[in-house]
């Protein structure tokens, strides 16, 4: 019997003491004010990531020397409720146009603020490239236990 192992999506929720409009605006237009400067692709220092404000827009990093590196695209632009970004960075943090993983962010109004739910899914596609993945996963000392443990942990939260 073979079981396909899929890593659980990464899910995070956080409450902010502001309107969905404001939260959406800071997440997108203001991304350069909170994105960690250390998380970058290009050789030059990061100026800021840019999310173009429309479905089909680009999502890229702008470096201090003016160069740009693709991160992905904007799949869904529905302010202030929903944003879906396409993340196309490999495990080694390089851009791969053939890799498509989704980051969905929901902004839900609550009393006195907004709940922000983030889900980064389709992570198994990061391993789709090679059959070697399956070998690694099913081989002795492979990942099934680890992935299952991650999946269980994610489900509990």
């Amino acid at each position, binding site marked *: 019997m073979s079981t396909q192992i899929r*890593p659980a999506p990464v899910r995070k929720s956080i409450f902010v003491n502001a309107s969905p409009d*404001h939260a959406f605006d800071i997440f997108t237009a203001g991304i350069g004010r909170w994105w*960690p400067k250390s998380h970058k692709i290009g050789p030059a220092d990061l100026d800021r990531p840019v999310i173009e404000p429309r479905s089909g827009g680009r999502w890229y990093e702008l470096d201090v020397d003016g160069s740009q590196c693709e991160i992905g695209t904007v799949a869904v632009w529905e302010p202030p409720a929903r944003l879906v970004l396409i993340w196309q960075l490999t495990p*080694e943090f390089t851009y791969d146009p053939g890799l498509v993983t989704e980051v969905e962010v929901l902004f839900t109004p609550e009393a006195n603020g907004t709940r922000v739910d*983030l889900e*980064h899914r389709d992570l198994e596609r990061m391993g789709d490239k090679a059959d070697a993945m399956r070998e*690694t996963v099913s081989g002795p000392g492979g990942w099934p236990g*680890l992935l299952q443990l991650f999946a269980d942990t994610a489900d509990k939260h």
Partner: protein
Amino acid sequence: MTNVDRAFSALHDPTRRAVFERLREGPRPVGEIARGLPVTRPAVSQHLKVLREAGLVSDRSEGTKRIYHIDPKGLGAMRAWLDQFWESALRAFASEVERSAKEDR
């Protein structure tokens, strides 16, 4: 210790996580990984050995040098890294939202 335990404890050690993070910036030799870290080079080599045994990191020879890189097939490592990345990024986002909301008032 099982392989699962090994992979988990490998990433739970803060210094080892720093070593792993350094490799996220790209493949590099041990000397470069050690630069800027508050531990000795032999200690970094030791951490790399643990990460390699846990299946999180691989290495290859380049001339006389050994180059370490994140094992791209180590999907569990990627997920763990993303989990931690979004955790800290969202926290930074929330502080920025609240800081700027206060300014507007």
